[in-house]
Structures are given as C-alpha cells and as structure tokens.
C-alpha cells in the first residue's frame, strides 16, 4: 500500500510530504518530497546587497533566526577579511546560545506533542517566550529577529538586557530539570523513543548528517569545539554525545545541549559585565556603517554612511565559505563575489536539508508509527530545507 503523509500533516512540522510504501504496518520505502516552501532565496540574494540578505536569512530557519544571521555575517566577514570587535563577538555568542535554547525548546515541545506527551509543550513554550522577549528587546522583532550585521551588531545592546539574560540563565537549569522529570524516565516516552529510528555513526557520516543527530550517533563533532568561531575556544563547555543513535539519544543530546548552552550564556554575560562598554561594530567604514552620532558630526562618516546605504560595500573578487554550529547542525553560507556589492552567488548549506535525507535509512523496515518519532527527532524546519 502506498500512503501519502503530508504536506498538511500536523506532525511533519511544516509542509513536508512523505510517500510511504507499506507492507501491513511496516515501512518498505519512504520518500520525502520537499519544495513546497521554495521561495528562491539564493536567487534573490544575487539581486540584493550582502546586508539586504540578512533579514532574508531569518526566514530560513525561523526557529533560530540569529544563528542564520551569524552564518551570513561570518561568511561575508571571511570574504572581506575582517573580524568583529570582541564585544560584538561575545554578544553574538550570548544571543546564539539563547537561540539554541529556544530552538531546542520548540523541538522538544513539538516532538513530545507528536508522541503524545502534551504537558511538555506548554512548559517549553513558556521558556521560549522569554527568549523571544529578549529578541524583542535587542532588535524589536520577536520571531524574525535580525540583529547581527557584517562587522558587528546593528546597535549596542540595550540597557537592562544583561539582567534579563541573567534571570533567564539562572532559571533555565531548573526548567530543563522539569522537562527531564516529565520525560527522561517516563515509560511511555522510553517505549516510543528507545531503539526507534536508529542511525549508525557510519550511516550518519556517509549521509552528511550534522548537529545533534550526528552526535546522537556517537560522533563527537561540534564546530564550536573543532573549528571555533566568535571566540568559542575561550568558553568552557562540553559536547554531549549519544551511544545508540536512536531517538532517545538525540533527545538526551539536545536536552544536555540546553544545559551546556546555559553554561556558555552564563560565561558570556559575565564577560560582557567585566568588559564594560566598547565598540559593538568595526570602525572600518569602507564596509561597516558608522554610528549615528558620528554621522551627525563628521562629514566623512556621512559620506561613508551614504555610500554604504546607497551602494553597499565592495568585497574583493573571490569566494568564501563559513559555517556555524546552528541548533540543527552545520549551517554554512558560501559567497562568490565578482567585486560588486551584490554576491555573484550565494549558496546556503542548510542542515535540515541534509539531515532529512537520513529519514529513509531511519524508518525503512520499521513501523509506520515510528515515522512520526523519526521526523520529530530529526528536528527539521521546512523554511530552511526549501529556502
């Protein structure tokens, strides 16, 4: 029997369609069909300046907008050969770690809801709301926050932000304990996730899977540790790894990652408090906008402001690829520049796109009910897959 699952199925987390060939209740073949959200972002980027593409990236992985911002900014900075000032880097680390917590909260809530545990959903969205209000504070948007710019940040962090982050970071470990109380030893949860949707380390690597799924399969690979960016090598944290590569291990990896993210965010807040005020943006006005105060008092700053807003900056001819460890895995942006302010080519290496390919390996030969668990444990975002 051939069963069509989606694209309007609540547990496909968006508009994913899976064509399942069944033998009784056993899945013989599973073929994901994607593209329902394709909006041609890579094509559009060729008609925009680098800065204009930043808000576009929030719509890719809309659960982790700031990670996408960061990946684009790092790729453009690598192309230009510049680096953001230390204060901006610490703020970037702080906010992307909070983003990771909120993205994992949405994943945990919806994944548990799919399997039948309803309560967790409300708890997770309560915490996510706090991160969204922090986004609101820094850039005025709750969902599609775009706060990072090439060379630093859009503006300095507002007053009272660190106190608010501090409250959140202090509360968060207790909340993670709450989620674990509800799930980690829950017999129904164990029955639905342990040994379900397994992926061996060998298959995971061959399929290019990254992020918590790769680590759940036992491969210790985290770009924050192995290829550090934004000064991640200066933070003290651990990389949780699973052993069996099943849905339960992926759950444990992500839950532990939330704890580790809290640790990193805690260190980042301390660092910002020790640093005191400083540059939040590079003072290289060929590439970065001068601050508003300077524009009002200096003619050169005004000219630079005008040039960058009207034309954009002129990168050298070349190409660059930069990655970040996004909540879903390796998120990378690849720019080819022809020397004009618009990229000749922008390619996004979307982690969900690659991770979804492993669905067939996870579910073939297993029960149809486990497809739901597999999709949930993959943590896909269709906005990023289809771009």
């Amino acid at each position, binding site marked *: 029997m051939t069963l069509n699952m989606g694209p309007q199925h609540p547990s496909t987390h968006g508009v994913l369609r899976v064509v399942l060939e069944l033998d009784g209740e056993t899945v013989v073949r599973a073929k994901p069909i994607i*593209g329902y959200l394709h909006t041609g972002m890579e094509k559009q980027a060729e008609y925009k300046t680098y800065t204009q593409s930043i808000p576009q990236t929030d719509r890719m992985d809309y659960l982790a907008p700031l990670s996408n911002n960061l990946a684009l900014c790092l790729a453009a900075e*690598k192309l230009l050969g510049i680096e953001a000032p230390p204060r901006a880097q610490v703020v970037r680390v702080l906010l992307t770690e909070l983003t990771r917590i909120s993205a994992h909260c949405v994943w945990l809530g919806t994944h548990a809801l799919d399997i039948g545990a309803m309560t967790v959903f409300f708890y997770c969205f309560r915490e996510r709301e706090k991160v969204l209000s922090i986004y609101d504070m820094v850039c005025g948007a709750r969902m599609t926050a775009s706060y990072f710019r090439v060379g630093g940040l859009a503006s300095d962090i507002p007053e009272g932000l660190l106190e608010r982050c501090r409250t959140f970071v202090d509360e968060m470990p207790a909340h993670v304990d709450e989620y674990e109380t509800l799930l980690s030893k829950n017999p129904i949860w164990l029955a639905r996730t342990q040994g379900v949707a397994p992926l061996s380390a060998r298959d995971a690597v*061959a399929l290019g899977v990254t992020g918590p799924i790769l680590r759940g399969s036992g491969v210790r690979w985290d770009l924050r540790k192995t290829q550090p960016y934004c000064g991640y090598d200066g933070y003290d944290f651990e990389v949780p790894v699973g052993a069996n590569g099943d849905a339960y291990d992926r759950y444990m990896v992500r839950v532990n990652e939330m704890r580790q993210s809290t640790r990193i965010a805690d260190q980042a807040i301390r660092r910002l408090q020790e640093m005191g005020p400083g540059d939040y943006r590079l003072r290289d006005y060929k590439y970065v906008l001068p601050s508003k105060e300077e524009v009002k008092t200096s003619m050169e700053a005004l000219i630079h402001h005008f040039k960058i807003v009207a034309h954009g900056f002129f990168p050298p001819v070349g*190409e*660059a690829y930069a990655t970040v460890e996004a909540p879903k895995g390796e998120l990378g942006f*690849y720019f080819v520049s022809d020397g004009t302010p618009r990229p000749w080519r922008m390619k996004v290496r979307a982690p969900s796109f690659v991770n979804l390919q492993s669905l067939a390996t996870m579910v073939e030969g297993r029960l149809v009910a486990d497809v739901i668990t597999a999709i949930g444990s993959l943590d896909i975002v269709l906005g990023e897959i289809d771009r």
Partner: protein
Amino acid sequence: MAEPASGSAAPTATAPPPGAPEPARLSPERVEQRLRERFSEVPIERQMGEAVRDHTVYVPAEHLVEVCTFLRDDHELDFAMLSWVGGIDYLPRQPRFEVVYHLLSLRRNCRFVLKVRVPEEAPRVPTLIGVWPTANWHERETYDFYGITFEGHPDMTRILLPEAWVGWPLRKDSPLGYQEVSFTHNTPTRTVPAPDLTRLKPKKVRYRAH
C-alpha cells in the same frame, strides 16, 4: 531514497577508538600534495585569486570519481563526509558552469574544496552517490537550479521546484521575474498585467570602486 546508506558505499570509520591520541590537524596544502603524488597524470590546478579564502582545486570531470574515492579511502586524508555540492554560473565566461564540492574530514579536522568545470554545450558531471550517498539531494538541487546532469544518478529529477517547471532558475540568463497577482473579488473582470510587467528587468548599475 534510491540507495540505502549502508549498501555499497563504505566510508572509513570516523569515531576514534577511546584513548587513541588525536591525530594532528591536516592542512589543505598537504591534501593537494597527496593528490598530486597519487594522480601525477591528472591535471590538478589550484584556484588562485585575490580572495579565494578556502583552498580550492580544479579536477577534470572524468577523474572526479577516482579522486573522490581516493580522498575518502586514504587513511591519512579520510574525507568521510561530503559537506555539500553546489553549482555556479559564470556567464559569459567559458566554460560556463562550475560544480563545487566541499569535503570534510572529521578525524583530521580539515576542509577541502574540489571544483569541476562544466561546459555549456554538455553540462554533465559524473555522480558521487557511490562515494558519498549524501550527494543524492545536493546533486538533484544543482540539477534543479542549473540544469547540470549528474550521470549515473538514479533519480535525476527536480527537488525544490515543481516537476513541470520550465527553465533553470539560477542560471544568469534566467532573470528574477514576478507575476502580477490579480485580485478579482472587487473588480468585475480579471485584469491581465501588461506583458512587460511580467518580467522584471534588473536595473543595470555600473559600479565604480571608490
């Protein structure tokens, strides 16, 4: 998916045995040197440029599969993962297209970039599914966007665009267009947009460096 991962492809194991010393980080220069030693008869060319930030090497399409198999299986290099594949259109330059392969060695912590030049008349490249199963969707995406065919691919169909789509949207001669949306609920007849409106011609701007 057409081919299960555990089938034909056999990448080397990635997780080091516990207690084993971490091997030193591999440099891309060393990878290129190894390639030149092993494939002395193949023209391997390093991409030079003002701002080519990653070590990039051009490989002829006919040698792509053997070069990649070597990169994957060689114990020193151990490129177990293919990070992504993408296309670039360099219109009007000839050969017009390039296909980019970003490889990742987890054990040696190294990235390496391979490129293949693809002519406009015969946009064909051999598939890498047999080496890394992950190439499947990446190659379909490149086919979908640029019309570059990957020979030997079991399912060379569009992935993101609808099956019935005509044209290759990311080619440079395919302009960014739009369709006028006609709202008909408060007008008696449907308004048809003027033909010149259906294609947005990007404004030609000549840039001068400051």
